[in-house]
């Protein structure tokens, strides 16, 4: 089932949560909605589910206009961050709930409901825990029950709202891999919301980066990371530095010095140079290099992160240097960008890679 979101807008009490969003999700795809809190990602997911009504626009499930369907009619599997299990029911009863509440014509027989619930319990690898109550399960187990419950209704699409947000790091990682396996086996069109970029990049076929109720970029993990469409995407995904530069005659000037960059096909004006810590190489000081004073050095597992204070304004830039290289605070260090992007201050357009 492919999902088409057509010019959706949503306002809460005159505060716009989503602005004119359009997005196509292909059948069988695993898509992540990624963004900081308040970016509208959960609102978008709830609109797809029918838990919220859009102020404008439509949601299409295949050729069917889902906007006119109630949540019950949409037949979506929804998994909540805090599981939302029915705590007075056993695990098996929780999973079978969606089948039990069907109108009598479409309701499977009791034995059949039980058989299907048990099959799903096997799928989520909790075969022996069917008689337990949710309070007797760990967080990771509860979320797996919630997923089995959502799958029981044979949903047209599977929607997950920060499904691993309430779990600890180790369980998160395991569940992430496991969700990918389930997805590949069942083939549901799946959309999940996360604020964890690592989770989005690792798990999803395509990542939708959102900010302030708008879509910033849609693309694969490679596209998002290597060709960020806006300064927001650049700085939201991965570590980043930004330096104010001025463009004059196709050259980039940092604090009055010309940087050793290939000629830029861009009109003159203020811009920002975006750099990742590992795309900066330490070089001998020379023409066109960026020279700064070491303000701080931190050791991470594989290397050192050096914080350089650059220029008269003391702009900070983080540089990743090999652990073998000793660096001490106060030292002068010259670096040269290997890869970078330049964005105009005013419009968020990428100029160079």
């Amino acid at each position, binding site marked *: 089932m492919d999902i088409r979101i057509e010019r959706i807008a949503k306002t809460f009490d005159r505060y716009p949560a989503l602005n004119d969003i359009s997005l196509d999700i292909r059948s069988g795809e695993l898509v992540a909605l990624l963004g900081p809190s308040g970016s509208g990602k959960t609102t978008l997911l709830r609109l797809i589910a029918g838990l919220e009504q859009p102020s404008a626009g439509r949601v299409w499930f295949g050729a069917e206009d889902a906007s006119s369907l109630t949540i*019950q009619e949409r037949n979506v599997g929804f998994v*909540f961050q805090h599981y*939302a299990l*029915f705590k*007075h029911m056993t695990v098996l009863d929780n999973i079978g709930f969606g089948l039990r*509440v069907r109108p009598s014509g479409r309701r499977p027989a009791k034995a059949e409901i039980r058989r299907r619930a048990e099959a799903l319990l096997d799928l989520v690898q909790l075969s022996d825990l069917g008689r337990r109550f949710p*309070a007797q399960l760990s967080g990771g187990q509860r979320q797996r029950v919630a997923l089995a419950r959502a799958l029981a209704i044979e949903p047209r699409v599977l929607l997950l709202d920060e499904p691993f947000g309430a779990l600890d790091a180790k369980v998160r990682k395991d569940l992430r891999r496991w969700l990918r396996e389930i997805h590949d086996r069942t083939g549901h069109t799946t959309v999940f919301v996360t604020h964890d970029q690592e989770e989005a990049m690792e798990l999803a076929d395509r990542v939708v980066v959102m900010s302030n109720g708008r879509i910033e970029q849609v693309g694969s993990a490679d596209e998002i990371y290597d060709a960020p469409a806006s300064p927001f995407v650049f700085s939201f995904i991965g570590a980043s530095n930004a330096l104010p530069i001025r463009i004059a005659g196709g050259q980039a000037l940092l604090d009055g010095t010309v940087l050793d960059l290939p000629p830029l096909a861009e009109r003159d004006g203020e811009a920002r140079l975006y750099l990742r810590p590992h795309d900066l190489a330490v070089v001998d000081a020379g023409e066109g290099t960026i020279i700064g004073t070491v303000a701080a050095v931190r050791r991470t597992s594989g290397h050192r992160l050096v914080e350089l204070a650059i220029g008269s304004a003391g702009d900070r830039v983080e540089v990743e240097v090999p652990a073998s290289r000793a660096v001490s605070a106060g030292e002068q260090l010259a670096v040269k960008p290997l890869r970078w992007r330049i964005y105009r201050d005013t419009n968020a357009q990428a100029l160079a890679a």
Partner: protein
Amino acid sequence: MVAAALSGPFRKPSILPGFGLTLGLTLAWLGTIVLIPLAALVLKSAGLGWEAFGTLVTDPRTISALKLSFGAALVAATINLVFGLLLAWVLVRYRFPGRRLIDAFIDLPFALPTAVAGIALTALYAPNGWIGQFLAPLGIKVAYTPLGVVVALVFVSLPFIVRTVEPVLAEIDREVEEAAASLGANRRQTVFGVVLPTLMPALLTGYALALARAVGEYGSVIFIAGNIPYVSEIAPLLIVIRLEEFNYAGATAVAAVMLAISFVMLLVINLIQAWSRRRFGDGR
């Protein structure tokens, strides 16, 4: 946690200090306030001997008074179970002007002297009262009948259910209802299949409290009941009548029976509650 501490050996080391002291204080307090007066009551009626006790208790007037007291209390608590739940639902789920005011009104039956309530209700429901005059032509008599007793008991026991259900209802996660809807459940299935079972322990607590209050109610009932022996005479009133006759043994006998029945009822409700709580995994 308390249950675990009680079932384990008393001297088990615990991160919560003062178990011995607090348990001692609890027992001393409970003994002084509750158990000693009740023990005196049992002792006094035990002085009668089984035969005399039996005669007093199986007296038709006593039996009909007990039936009325417990019957009317059960009916009143059940009525309040339904309407108390509705009130709590409206107060928790909706925002409307005057909500705080209505919320405050709920507690009035607590604060009002019961005699005032009884007199007011009698004036309303008497055949010539504001409400009674419309009911009389329909052949419905409220004041001076067992129905009047029920009306008074509904009034005094209303706050218990509302106040016990309100906080639990407020805590029910919106997401649980959304989950039910996303699984295809309609509103009725969500309320009866998901929300009400979750409220069960709170409803039972409120029901027990309302029942206990209604069984022991005296002040408001005696004004509206008419107090006709065998018809609309409640057990607490019969106790007072026996006392005024200086028939202390008779009074304690009725009281002892009331006590026993009340204790059994509350115990049963508590057991059901413990069972339903265990199902939720709260009291593991």
